[in-house]
């Protein structure tokens, strides 16, 4: 019983630490307007991929497991424009806007 309680306490203590590392957050705009709720956003850091989606304010929030270079991809219909983001020990804000050029989306940081 003692072991279980200790393990639970350790797990609870580890949650904020894991969550705080490498948070990437921000907003995504499409032609000047915030994107709708539920637009899939994925962040790939090395072999790991973190899925997410935008909320009703066009904002996203993802957590990388470690510091470093990652690729953030936004799914817009059949297209998946991507941009490079960097995760840090502290949270980092990346606001993006989608640009449509020659019928193709590109993702650019503001």
């Amino acid at each position: 019983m003692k072991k279980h309680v200790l393990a639970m306490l350790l797990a609870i203590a580890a949650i904020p630490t894991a969550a705080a590392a490498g948070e990437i957050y921000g907003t995504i705009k499409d032609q000047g307007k915030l994107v709708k709720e539920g637009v899939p956003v994925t962040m790939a850091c090395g072999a790991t991929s973190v899925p997410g989606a935008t909320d009703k304010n066009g904002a996203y929030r993802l957590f990388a497991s470690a510091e470093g270079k990652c690729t953030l991809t936004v799914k817009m219909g059949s297209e998946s424009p991507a941009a490079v983001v960097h995760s840090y020990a502290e949270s980092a804000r990346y606001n993006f806007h989608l640009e449509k050029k020659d019928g193709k989306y590109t993702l650019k940081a503001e």
Partner: protein
Amino acid sequence: MTEKQKDGWDKAAIVLHPVGGLLAALAVAGLGFFGSQFLEKRQSEETRARFFSELISKREEADSALRKDMFMSIIQSFLRPESASIDDRIVKLELLAYNFHESLNLKPLFVQLAGDIAKSATPATRGNGDRLEKVAREVVRKEMVVLEGVGASFGRTIDFDDVAQSPGGLALDSGKLTLGRISREFSIVVEKIEVPTKQIQIRLEVKTPREGSHEVDTDDAEFWVDFFDFPMIDHTRLSHDQRCAVVIKNFGKSSAKIGLVFFPGSYASLKEKPYIQEMIRDLLGAKQASDLENARR
């Protein structure tokens, strides 16, 4: 002589003569009543405004006196550093930073304390450097929230490997920002990165198109930026009483994220005074001023 027959107008004149007097008396009374009410209302508004301004000025005076005492007692410990431990000095710098970050450039104190912490680094005091950095980041964050609210900004990421592979400096994507009616293009070249001290050497180029002409005015500045640069205090002064500042938002092992904010001079630190020439130009109005500037050129 026969008396002339009185017509309708004469009869009306006889009836209206006393009524006219009554109406004139009523008009005078009404004018007096409403006039006195208007004056009374205005006086009461003036009294309220005076009371409010007195209250504000007294509160400001009390606040200034308190801040002055607080500032004097805290600054003494920095002038005699041997009398205080590093922990004490960090607490005092925290007090200074949170209370006076808008009016004082605290970078020299942060730099000195960071140096002292580095010199006396022991496992027990290793966290002090992070604590100092946390205070500075918190102040920068607070200032950026204000400045981004009234101005415009953009962020850029610097990859250290890219900087190492660019001997002449790494040019980041330029950003075009508009404030008021003035649009400027900001270009940042990263010249050097000092990873251990978390410092970045930057060359900033600001291009402003001249009104009514295809020519462009270029201002440039070269400086080092670190976590202890606070944008309200440490910024580049531009024409038309505008400012821009570069801050470090994140600094990792292989990259850093910086932000550039473009904001009105009225939001710069309290220690700054606007140039008289700019004040006059604002008073004269933007159009007249641009005419004058064009004539001067």
